[in-house]
């Protein structure tokens, strides 16, 4: 069987969290800084305090939203050739996400549009990466349209499904226009070639732009990852149970809003668990507590039957060292084996500030390793091979058996970069460490890979959209 999923919450604890979340939504309510959204919510029968921007959500609305939100949706590559049903047991790996710097030869350099293109191109080559998120936000273009430039760079370097977390409603509108051109559709509900993400501000607040992104996304029919990010001790009480509670209440508010904007639009139960380091005064995403939170979070999502997102693999380290390796591995393993469907952050570290080409390649390799781990062990007549054991007998060997050949490519994971050569052979082939080998592989991809290109007609239209938005203020 497959490896058992990780669990840290009992059924009773999950139900308690759900019940307490409903009480917060109905009692305390959520602050929303957007007059249009408040009007819309009031119009739909919710209790809105316009003076204090507070909206209270009765249980009936949560129930209704959970009913109308789909349990799964199909994420398509933008050429619409390949689709993956997101939900249930699916694992969907996304590179990204929104780092500011690129680590090059040990130096932290502000990211450029060329970096966005390069990361997309490498992601296009990596077989375990299913979708491409904005790996770095380009700093060499006007800030209000940087995501539009990033989108254009990505579309020209990968055919995979795209992921954005629009910073503003303005940016979301621009992206939606571009995506409509690519998809050749006015309504994107049936053609999910992109996923959006929007985060409330913890505790219990939706800023105007966040609600704007969620609204634009839902109107356009685009699946949205609703991603609360409460920081233990800072924007939620310090205890982990309270972090989950604040997170869940915020998520449910986003879910209700999205379903009122458009019934049936796919919403993903997202989570970026962080604690707050009180010595450094900074958020931390790969602490042991966040491992437990990742697992608990997926259990909550499964309780609601919604597609689950989780950030992974992550690290708070600043260079390619041992800390990075163990933090990446444990966050990845926890997220994968908790049952998360969508895992974002391949290629990134430094608590989300830096990305590197080699890390993206290493994360792909690590993922191959871990996917085999959770695959578990198949036990049946063929895999037990009792007949063969009898046939070969004591003191024989199995190197010359058809059974060995038959399973050689499927029973074991084959590393592409990890060293398995004996010392002499390793030395003879250069004696390189894994990050050096990964970097070489990344540079080879950049040199050799020819990704499919957008039609010139579409490229032209996208250029016009970017120009139009650039002229606006944002």
């Amino acid at each position, binding site marked *: 069987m497959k490896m058992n999923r990780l669990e840290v919450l009992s059924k009773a604890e999950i139900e308690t969290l759900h019940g307490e979340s409903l009480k917060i939504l109905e009692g305390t309510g959520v602050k929303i800084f957007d007059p249009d959204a408040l009007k819309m919510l009031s119009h739909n029968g919710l209790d809105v305090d316009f003076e204090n921007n507070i909206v209270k959500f009765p249980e009936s609305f949560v129930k209704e939203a959970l009913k109308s939100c789909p349990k799964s949706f199909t994420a398509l590559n933008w050429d619409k050739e390949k689709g993956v049903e997101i939900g249930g047991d699916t694992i969907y790996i996304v590179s990204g996400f929104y780092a500011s710097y690129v680590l090059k030869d040990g130096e932290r350099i502000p990211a450029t549009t060329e970096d966005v293109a390069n990361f997309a191109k490498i992601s296009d080559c990596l077989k375990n990466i299913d979708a491409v998120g904005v790996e770095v936000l380009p700093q060499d273009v006007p800030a209000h349209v940087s995501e539009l430039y990033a989108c254009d760079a990505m579309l020209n370097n990968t055919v995979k499904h795209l992921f954005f977390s629009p910073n503003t409603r303005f940016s979301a509108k621009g992206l939606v226009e571009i995506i409509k051109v690519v998809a050749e559709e006015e309504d994107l509900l049936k053609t999910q070639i992109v996923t959006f993400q929007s985060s409330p501000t913890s505790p219990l607040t939706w800023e105007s732009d966040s609600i704007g992104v969620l609204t634009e996304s839902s109107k356009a029919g685009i699946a949205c990852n609703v991603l609360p990010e409460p920081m233990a001790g800072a924007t939620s009480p310090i205890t982990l149970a309270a972090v989950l509670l604040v997170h869940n209440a915020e998520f449910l508010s986003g879910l209700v809003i999205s379903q009122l904007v458009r019934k049936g639009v796919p919403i993903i139960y997202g989570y970026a668990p962080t604690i707050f380091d009180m010595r450094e005064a900074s958020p931390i995403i790969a602490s042991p507590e966040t491992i437990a939170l990742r697992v608990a979070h997926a259990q909550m999502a499964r309780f609601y039957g919604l597609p689950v997102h989780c950030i992974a693999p992550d690290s708070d380290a600043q260079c390619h060292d041992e800390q990075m390796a163990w933090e990446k591995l444990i966050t990845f393993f926890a997220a994968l084996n908790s049952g998360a469907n969508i895992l974002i952050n391949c290629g990134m570290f430094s608590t989300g500030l830096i990305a590197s080409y080699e890390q993206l390649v290493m994360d792909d390799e690590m993922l191959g390793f871990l996917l085999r781990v959770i695959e578990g062990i198949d036990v049946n007549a063929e895999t037990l091979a009792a007949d063969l054991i009898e046939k070969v007998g004591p003191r024989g*060997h199995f*190197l*010359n*058996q*058809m059974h060995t*050949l038959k399973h050689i490519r499927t029973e074991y994971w084959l590393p592409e970069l990890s060293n398995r050569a*004996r*010392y*002499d052979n390793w030395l003879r082939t250069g004696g390189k460490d894994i990050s050096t080998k990964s970097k070489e592989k990344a540079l080879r991809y950049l040199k050799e890979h020819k990704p499919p290109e957008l039609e010139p007609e579409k490229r032209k239209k996208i250029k016009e959209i970017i120009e139009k938005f650039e002229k606006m203020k944002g």
Partner: protein
Amino acid sequence: MEKEYAGILQKLSKAVEEFDADRAKEAAIEAINAGLDPLRAIDEGLAKGIRIIGNLFENKEAFLPELIMAGEAMKAGTQVLMEEIRRRGLSIKKLGTVLIGTVHGDLHDIGKNIVISMLESAGFEVIDLGVDVPAEAFVKKVKEVQPDVLGMSALLTTTAPGQEKVIELLKEYGLRHKVKVIIGGAATSERWANEIGADAYAADAIEAVRKIKTLLGVKEG
């Protein structure tokens, strides 16, 4: 005629490449019936297949069991062709003779047997002394059969010194300059080979064949 031969040679090679001993035998019989020179059938057919798999193995594109099973397919085809060679009274030119064994105290023989299979496929005559071979037995046999190459395997660090002992004994008996010595096995390395005065070290079966060819000045086929 030549076209038919080319087809048969292709079948022989393919049977080895696809690890199919039965098809290798069938193709060998077909070769004989068609009047194809059995020596050519080995060299341009079966051995070609093993060279292809050997290259893939070296490039990490084929696995050890594939190499072994290709060797077994080649052996099955070769047996049929060898009978024909003997029947016709032809002689087959060997690339050289290799005496091989696992050193004293070491009972591991899978690796050694793979090396034997690859050497035979490449056209060497191999004399196998088996496992747990005392140093004196190696030396006695070297004196007796005068092989071109002596190959010694050791899997354990505790038994690897046995390789050194054999080399010392060869010197003592004045035989060291008469035979090339190659070592292998998990406990050994290039450095160890230099330390004990072996002529070569090989990390795997394919490399063993290549190094032995180099030691004997045989051109790569």
